């Protein structure tokens, strides 16, 4: 499947900023399952960019802007060709072993309720169990198309009725780890849960769990299905903060407002 992505992130500052330093995870990588056929990262001001990788192997772009600056637009656009893989990830950058993804983080910690929820899923085959977990989370929550609430933990989300795809992915991760299954957060793009007309678009988030003999397998609890060819995988980490598309710091007074415009389309649509 050919997917095209057009993602614009705009920050407006109420007062000019002296300096911006941002860490972007906005460039997807070729794997055996996805080929990036064209990708552009563009910033609408005089910025210095440096490319590297983080500890998880994700491609990272450091963005440095000297002020005064009142707004900035970061735009990525490109095309990715995906190949069917039943959700199994082949040929990704894997500098860290699955065992690392058993540790919890403040955002993906499980409490007794999440652990009980995970334990109650009665499948003994590991893959069947993960699918059952994926469906159970999908049924438990209504999908909130609004922008994810920054800093909301899996434990907090678990008590809600309507949550974002990011929250569902983090509940999935917390549940999997609570039963000893390595799991991680994936940020990227997919048309499957595009915001409706009144929604506020955001990059998509889902989860990957490690299965012996298969490797990393992608699950999207916001659909209840495995992530398939309609997904562009950009970054992985222990939680959503570690895989954040944009992590930034600014030097200056005032507050910021954020606009996101995102279109992910299947070829020909």
């Amino acid at each position, binding site marked *: 499947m050919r997917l095209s992505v057009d993602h614009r992130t705009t920050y407006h500052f109420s007062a000019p900023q002296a300096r911006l330093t*941002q860490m972007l995870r906005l460039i997807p990588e070729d794997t055996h399952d996805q080929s990036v056929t064209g990708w552009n990262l563009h910033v609408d001001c005089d910025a210095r960019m440096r490319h590297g990788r983080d500890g*998880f192997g994700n491609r990272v772009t450091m963005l440095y802007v000297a002020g005064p600056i009142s707004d900035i637009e970061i735009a990525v656009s490109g095309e990715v060709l995906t190949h069917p893989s039943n959700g199994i990830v082949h040929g990704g950058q894997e500098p860290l072993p699955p065992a690392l993804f058993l540790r919890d983080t403040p955002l993906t910690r499980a409490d007794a309720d999440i652990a009980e929820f995970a334990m109650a899923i009665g499948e003994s085959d590991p893959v069947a169990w993960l699918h059952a977990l994926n469906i159970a989370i999908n049924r438990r929550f209504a999908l909130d198309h609004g922008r994810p609430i920054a800093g909301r933990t899996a434990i907090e989300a678990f008590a809600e009725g309507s949550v974002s795809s990011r929250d569902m992915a983090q509940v999935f991760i917390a549940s999997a780890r609570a039963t000893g299954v390595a799991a991680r957060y994936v940020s990227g793009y997919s048309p499957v849960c595009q915001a409706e007309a009144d929604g506020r678009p955001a990059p998509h988030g889902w989860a990957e769990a490690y299965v012996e003999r298969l490797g990393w397998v992608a699950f999207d609890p916001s659909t209840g299905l495995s992530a398939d060819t309609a997904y562009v995988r950009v970054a992985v980490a*222990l939680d959503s903060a570690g895989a954040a598309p944009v992590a930034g710091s600014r030097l200056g007074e005032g507050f910021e407002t954020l606009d996101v415009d995102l279109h992910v389309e299947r070829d020909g649509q």
Partner: protein
Amino acid sequence: MGIRRAFDEIMGKSGSMIPRSELAALGEWIESTPSNELRRRQQSAEATFRQLGITFAVYGESDASERIIPFDIVPRIFLANEWNRLSEGLVQRVEAINAFLHDIYGERRILAEGVLPADLIFGNPQFRPEIAGIRPPHDIWAHICGIDLVRTGPDDFYVLEDNARTPSGVSYMLENREAMLRLCPELFRSFRVAAVDSYPDKLLETMKSVAPIGVASPVCVVLTPGHYNSAYYEHSFLADSMGVELVEAADLVVDDDIVWMRTIAGLVKVDVIYRRIDDDYLDPLVFRPDSMLGVPGLIAAYAAGNVALLNAPGNGIADDKAIYSYMPEIVKFYSGSEPKLPNVETWRCREPQALKYVLDNLKDVVVKLVDGSGGYGMLVGPTATKAEIETFRAALIAEPHRYIAQPTLALSTVPTLADAGLAPRHVDFRPFVLTGSKGVQVVPGGLTRVALKEGSLVVNSSQGGGTKDSFVLMDNGAGEQAQVSDAFGQAQVQTMGQPL
């Protein structure tokens, strides 16, 4: 346990009234100097420390007043041959720590060969995936180590803790020596004591030696969390004595993966940072996003090889208490030989057999929190009350994985000025080991901490411990000898400092 069986470093056998023959001159000095004169000098030293502001705050105290760490006037003395053997062990240990960090954040050979259980690393919060794969300039990680030791006999030293993050205390080594030179000059005529005052020069040399490749005259700075930090005096003291800038995070800015320091004359490029702030607060884009102390982009500059950080981020995995019990295997794995400095025997309470032993012997052991420090969350069995023992028993049963236990060693003693005159008191020792691109050096001295309460084994300053000067005696006629070796190569000896 306790005083009766302990080795006294000056008197030799416990209870002896005659000093070890090599230290006869100290015995004469003690005999000829009345207690009240010793006390006067001690008070004079403490008054100076208070004036200098070498104070610390005790956590959890309601009045939180700034205190000085009490100073004891009677020095501890290491004979030259004792020191040389100890130094060899320290060099071996620190080389192994560097090799371990290089491996664990790189190839992870030690896990592939099954020397350490993988979950001990990957499940450990001190293993920082954020910086995995980064290679620090010159592949050196633990530039400044403060290895905590205890002693039970003339040549019997045990490592208690490897401090490979941001060990403090070196300012006490230097200030204590200065006080002793001023107040007891006669001792330096009786003994040829290796000088420690070149430490700031050695530290600066170490910093410059690990600058990114190609930087001809590196700019070095000391990064402090600020004057609220309990070790702020030391940060400013070290910056001052090295003649480099003392900066806070807000003084640094990263642009284009290069670190700059704001100065009155504009931005100055920074090449080497001796950072005295924890990993969590280094860079809000990589570690804690809520950190106000950090420098955004610092890790990117480090990953790009444009700045050296002393010590390297991620070092906590090397001095973690859960890793400690594997240090003998780690040393052996990287050095290819038996450790010259042993560990204290350690029971890992997460192992059921060990837990059972510890619960059966709580009266005789020391129990420590794996993630505790500063003498908090610790049980010293032989001096604990019944109630304290029962509290720990319950805690151990509830969360055994959080604890390790060790035998109570008969820690060595050194005569110390107590209310009723000189009396033996237990001591430990923190020597400082520097690793630069030219090799490893052990500074001939260190921080001796002394438990001022009779019979007490807890030397932490937060628990009423004090400090002493630590003399290292030199071989007759020879210059001061310090152990030096290539970072990962052959040992060689290099002259360091001058006799006084």
